[in-house]
């Protein structure tokens, strides 16, 4: 076993001088504007939650590496990213233990069993998030009033912007209260890191320009959501909010640019990525309308991740190749 010359590792195999560590650091940097906006809107509670999330994820990863007798993979920063993403998807009023359990579960169940990096079939932070969300459905909705928001945080349900069903079931009069521009600029109630579509869009475009992620999946996702919401709104304005409302609330933008672009749990071919996003976006709107109590976007992306192997079969035909009839 010691004279292995060729070591085949899990994809991505692109070799151009970039390292995994740099890609992850770039992703974290792209998340920073939205994170800082969350800190501004929700104050020290949000800072503490993010710190706790990152610490818990790194601690779990270090512990498991130690127990398994492997060299620690903390250096690539993936645990930091996982903890950060998890904390950003949790509202600022959530208890600390919720984030700790979520981050630990993300690493323990979502990441480590599939190899340290690149093998996870579902985005690890989403695994952690959905485990805690299904276990403690009330705590995961502990929203707090942001510093600047045009409307007061009213009854829990009415203000749950993420919360698909509630968001969409708001009276049309309530929807009018949310001005699209306010929503876009991040003056809304929601989890810490996802309330500012503008900053997330900028961060996502930065990632695409730095070639850390591709454009197909995020834009596919946004188009899918827009189409589904547009059709739904045209058919039944009282049952389905408008496309812009769907796109600018909840974790739609976050999901599109930071969850649909994960390296290991989404397809690798261009058409595969686009279809993954398109169907995922439609599914997210469907879940928002037809009734998940929590987290339509995360669930839609998790469901699509499970179908990733199917999308990966949609490969471009090499130039000059004739379809064979075997």
């Amino acid at each position, binding site marked *: 076993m010691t004279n292995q010359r060729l070591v085949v590792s899990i994809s991505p195999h692109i070799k151009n001088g970039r390292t995994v560590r740099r890609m992850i650091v770039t992703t974290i940097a792209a998340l920073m504007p939205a994170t800082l906006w969350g800190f501004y809107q929700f104050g020290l509670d949000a800072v503490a939650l993010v710190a706790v999330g990152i610490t818990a994820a790194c601690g779990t990863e270090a512990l498991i590496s130690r127990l398994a007798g492997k060299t620690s993979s903390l250096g690539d920063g993936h645990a930091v990213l996982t903890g950060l993403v998890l904390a950003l998807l949790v509202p600022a009023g959530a208890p600390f233990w919720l984030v700790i359990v979520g981050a630990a579960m993300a690493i323990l169940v979502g990441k480590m069993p599939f190899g340290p990096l690149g093998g996870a079939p579902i985005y690890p932070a989403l695994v952690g998030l959905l485990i805690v969300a299904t*276990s403690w459905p009330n705590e995961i909705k502990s929203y707090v009033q942001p510093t600047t928001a045009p409307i007061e945080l009213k009854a829990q349900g009415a203000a749950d912007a993420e919360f698909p069903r509630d968001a969409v079931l708001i009276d049309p009069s309530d929807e009018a209260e949310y001005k699209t521009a306010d929503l876009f600029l991040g003056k809304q109630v929601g989890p810490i890191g996802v309330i500012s579509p503008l900053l997330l869009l900028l961060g996502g475009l930065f990632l695409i320009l730095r070639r850390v992620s591709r454009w197909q999946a995020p834009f596919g996702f946004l188009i899918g959501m827009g189409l589904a919401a547009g059709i739904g709104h045209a058919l039944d304005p009282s049952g389905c909010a408008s496309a812009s409302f769907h796109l600018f609330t909840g974790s739609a933008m976050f999901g599109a640019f930071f969850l649909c672009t994960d390296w290991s749990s989404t397809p690798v071919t261009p058409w595969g990525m686009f279809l993954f996003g398109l169907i995922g976006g439609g599914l997210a709107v469907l879940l928002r309308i037809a009734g998940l109590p929590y987290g339509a976007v995360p669930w839609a992306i998790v469901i699509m991740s499970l179908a990733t192997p199917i999308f990966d079969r949609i490969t471009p035909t090499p130039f000059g190749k004739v379809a064979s009839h075997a």
Partner: protein
Amino acid sequence: MKTLTQEFTKGLWEQIPPFRLVLGLCPTLAVTKSLEGGWGMGLATTFVLVCSNIFISALRNVIPPKVRIATFIVIIATFVVITELVMKAYTPMLSETLGVFIPLIVVNCIILGRAEAFASKNGVGRSLLDGLGIGLGFTLALAVLGALRELLGTGKLTMFAQANLDLTIIPLGEGREFLFKFMVDPPGAFVCLGAMLLLMNLISERSARSKAA
């Protein structure tokens, strides 16, 4: 040829059904929400397994090979229904906890597997020991898995609800209840089963290494 003791003990570790044979996963995942569900299901299965093993090995020279499966199923189903009725009469709460999974013992592949692979080829004594060993191994596995999930999920251990033998292991003060629903939900069953498999593989790897050294 194994000794009689080995015939019995193989089911407890070497061939412990859900972990090593990876058989009987349906009840393993479904009823291990609580310790009580785990051992209750395990003992019910053990009873059916021992009885069907005895009868099938006693009749092994009479049963025509072509209709053997049909005969096995009739014998197994009989003992399952007996178990179901007796449990309904004497352990009603346990029987309600296990619900439809008691009749489903008929299609538990451990039982038909032992009938086909062991009881139909070996004597009554050996088949009895085999059934008892495999059954108790199954019980042990289910009880451990049930205890793990219940403890992580609810902080309690229900030994036997009918006799009020519940233990609260993780107290959280007045009026607050510890509930980690994921662990008692179906996905938690898979995660806990995976953790148990990991643990078993670790232990056997360690012991194999220490034997080799």
